[in-house]
């Protein structure tokens, strides 16, 4: 009951204050900077009405990185704060972070779980007190041995979601080809095989530990795939998805042969992939917050391991879709459309 009344109060005040500012602006003929002060007051009320109270128990550690990637972490943190309904202390980690200082601050604020974003954020948590739990996000994957003790929310889209979207665009699809480096994506391929089977698809996967081998597999796939029933998937794999050699080959040959290919990298949609699922940063933040809250609620007994990305948005290349004859009846539901105009 109390919560209800406090939630309403700032809104009313905000409206009254905006009205007051407006009346002042109307009346103000000379002193424009006086108007500025009144307006500022009004906006502060708006900000206060929508501001979050300080939170307890959860902190965020993220890499101090330049734009445009800085915005990615900013959005994730917004999602975390939205879910926890609190202002979460966050620490940007530069090239030489002061571990002691941050550890002291975490202790002072009684932090029980740290949400570590990015490789550097995760790396930093290795030096923290073991009593502080770690939930990781904003990374593709980490060695499975390291993931045994923590919960890692990967940026790799859940294969099942990719296959569901493939089915929607291409109901006749039966096989999905993929070339991957087992050192990077063995964990994901295990999930992908199950997900494909569940959707009535066959995942035809090839392991390649170097680019040369990968290229040979791609050439074979592109020569033999049947555009009516087959599709190619490019995962996030720095060995087998080389931007200089593999991508141009895949783009050209799939266009020429009318073969659908989709990617886990949204930039490939801009280049000509049919679709991609890319991270919904605010939703990632909410999921990380849930995981951290769960850790606190269960006294550190939350789930462990690497989890694929479920908070996804859909990017589609309408030009490629037109070329492949894919019907995009519900295109208003796409989050990102290429080409722009």
């Amino acid at each position, binding site marked *: 009951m109390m919560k209800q009344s406090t939630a309403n109060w700032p809104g009313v005040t905000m409206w009254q204050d905006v009205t007051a500012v407006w009346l002042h602006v109307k009346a103000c003929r000379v002193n424009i900077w006086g108007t500025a002060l009144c307006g500022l007051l009004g906006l502060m009320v708006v900000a206060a009405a929508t501001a979050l109270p300080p939170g307890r128990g959860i902190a965020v550690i993220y890499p101090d990185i330049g734009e445009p990637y800085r915005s990615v972490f900013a959005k994730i943190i917004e999602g975390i704060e939205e879910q926890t309904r609190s202002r979460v202390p966050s620490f940007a980690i530069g090239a030489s972070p002061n571990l002691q200082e941050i550890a002291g601050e975490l202790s002072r604020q009684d932090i029980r779980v740290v949400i570590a974003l990015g490789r550097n954020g995760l790396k930093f948590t290795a030096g923290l007190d073991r009593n502080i739990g770690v939930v990781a996000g904003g990374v593709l994957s980490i060695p499975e041995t390291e993931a045994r003790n923590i919960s890692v929310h990967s940026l790799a889209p859940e294969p099942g979601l990719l296959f569901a979207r493939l089915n929607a665009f291409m109901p006749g699809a039966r096989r999905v080809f993929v070339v991957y480096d087992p050192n990077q994506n063995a964990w994901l391929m295990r999930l992908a095989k199950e997900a494909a089977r569940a959707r009535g698809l066959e995942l035809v996967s090839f392991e390649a530990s170097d680019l040369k081998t990968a290229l040979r597999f791609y050439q074979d796939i592109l020569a033999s795939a049947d555009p009516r029933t087959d599709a190619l998937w490019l995962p996030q794999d720095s060995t087998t998805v080389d931007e200089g050699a593999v991508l141009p080959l895949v783009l050209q040959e799939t266009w020429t042969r009318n073969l659908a290919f989709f990617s886990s990298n949204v930039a490939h949609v801009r280049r000509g992939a049919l679709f991609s699922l*890319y991270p919904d940063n605010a939703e990632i933040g909410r999921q990380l917050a849930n995981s951290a809250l769960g850790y606190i609620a269960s006294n550190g007994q939350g789930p462990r391991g690497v989890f694929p990305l479920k908070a996804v948005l859909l990017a589609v290349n309408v030009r490629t879709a037109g070329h492949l004859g894919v019907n995009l009846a519900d295109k208003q539901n796409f989050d990102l459309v290429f080409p722009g105009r």
Partner: protein
Amino acid sequence: MSRSFIKFLCALLLPVWVDAALAQPLEEEDLAMAYGDKATVSIATGARQDLRRAPAVATVITVADIKAMGATDLDEVMETVPGVHVTRTANQYFSSYGFRGINGIPTNPQVLVLQNGVQVNDLYRGDKGEAWSDLPLENIARIEIIRGPGSALYGADAFAGVINIITKTAADTPGTEFGVRGGSFNTRNAWVQHGGKLGDVDVAAYLRVGSTDGHKEIIRSDAASKLDKLFGTHASLAPGPLNTGYDAVDAGLDLGYGKWRLRAGYKLRDNLGTGVGVSYALDPVGKEKSERINADVSWSDAQFARNWGLGFSGSYLQYSEDVTTFNIYPPGTRFPTGVFPNGMIGSPGRWQRQVRASGYATYSGFAGHSLRFGLGHEDLNLYDVRTMKNFLLNAAGTPVPNPVSGVLIDYSGIQPHLVPHRRFNNYVYVQDEWNFARDWTLTAGLRNDHFSDFGSTANPRLALVWDASLDLTAKLLYGRAFRAPSFAEQYTINPTANGNSALKPESIRTLEAAFSWQARKDAQINLSFFRYDMKDTIRAMPNAVAGTGSTFANTGKQNGRGAELELVWDLSRTVRFSGSYSNQKTIDEATNTDAGYAPHHHVYARADWRFAGNWLLSPQLNWVAERKRAVGDTRPAVPDYTSADLTLRAERGKGQWSFAASIRNLFNATAREPTLYAAAVPGRPDIPTSLIPYDLPLPGRSFYLQAAYSL
């Protein structure tokens, strides 16, 4: 100067070599594989895009572009758009956006300006309003510019081009940001913006307050100088400085709830200087005030039912222009009808209201077709006019001083400068996007507008798009568009240019061919060709009876052709080069000579170099060349100019300060925009042919510093 520019060009290219030595941080590899390269990530992390697409030759300016170019005003953005050149008019130093040589004399009513899809253009002159002054960019999420006709979708005034300014929503501006900016000409700005949630409602709010003394370049000779020469008087204030200062307040509120969105805005411009002066005679004290209040509410559901989308919107705009005093001519000015010892003074005002309602439906149930239907109603009412002045105009348009010179008399009932007028419009449109063969799409659209005063006009649009290969798309576009006569052209009372209520709309037919080529994985080239024919162009023509002034008439014909070439090239992971070359040639068919004013050649180039994580250095240059005089104007050609700007920016996240520093017109180049020329009026030696003989000077070198803090 040439050496300076060689150095500057070196500075444009320097980042490429420097960057080659820098390694990409490991951290970015993961992010690049999930979010894409830097070109994609800023799109992918932005707000959901509007999917209302129609094939066109278009440019989209993002927040990242705005930051890189160091722009703080819409004018600075528009100058970077291929095919567009921003010129100035003497009155209020109003910025006029010339698209492809269509300049709109003296302003730009041929360009439709929208804010969040709602028309901004005013009713009086049909442009963005004489007291526009500027539009700050802190609260702008995206600017979409279409070159070419758009009447088949947007209706009136989408003639030479369409500018749609998209403001930030709560998703675009999370948290609270405070900012201050100051610099040359005693320019001071402060703003605050906030995005958040109030219960289930997304809230974005913005307030900006600013003021500037404006640049004070010297006008060597003005219209009063001409009268001085004629009558042996010494009234002119030339040589003297421009009057371009103003005070500004901008505010916006954006509320989103489910499928509903409510926006409201306020724009105040006060103490706005008169530029050179409203009659091209220097006026150091004249001030104008304008207020723009707007609100719109919309609802849309892209999946209202199977294969159906539905939406509607309603909008309200209240706009006033209220002049405290215009010193139209300085004290001591003599006309054939007498002397103005206290100067020729006026205090006009206009008040208008625009109410709009529209709805649309989309249907995708026919294989290969995407249909869109829409209809709407507009109530456009310039309901009040005030005309206070110390003179009356005689039958020839010559001012006759009041008996008591210094006293203003309300002539609103006797000789208002404009008769109030109300116009209604009902429209309906349909568009079909037909994918008739693999890689081929034909988009056909037609809109019919019925105006209560000048009747109906139907405007078609056809666009054939061929995805020729993986890397190449070709478009062939045809469209017809119209510009509604402005209320000034219909109902002005001034014998030098009387209104004509029988005017028809101006019309234009445009044919375009456009090619988009992904030349390399990191380089995109766009090439477009155009030609157009304008007819029924509205101009003031001398009346049949000599000595009775002029009246607006549909008389002009103009044709034009040209091309635009654009390049965006990511030279490395941290360096991007973008640039364009635009060419146009426009012929006035009445004289079969160049229509004048607009540059035949225009080059824009910019390099964006990100370094040391958060730093961005962006040099840019702008070359404007070959602006011919109008026929009969014997003045030497307007000199070409090349201006360079430099912006350094440090972007930091929440809880930290971000900084930007800009130098505009780095090498202090002399840059001028052409002034109008009018053919001599027989028997009226007091009306000179070129009122400002030495053209309009643009600001010299200027400096700006900005700091912003995010919470």
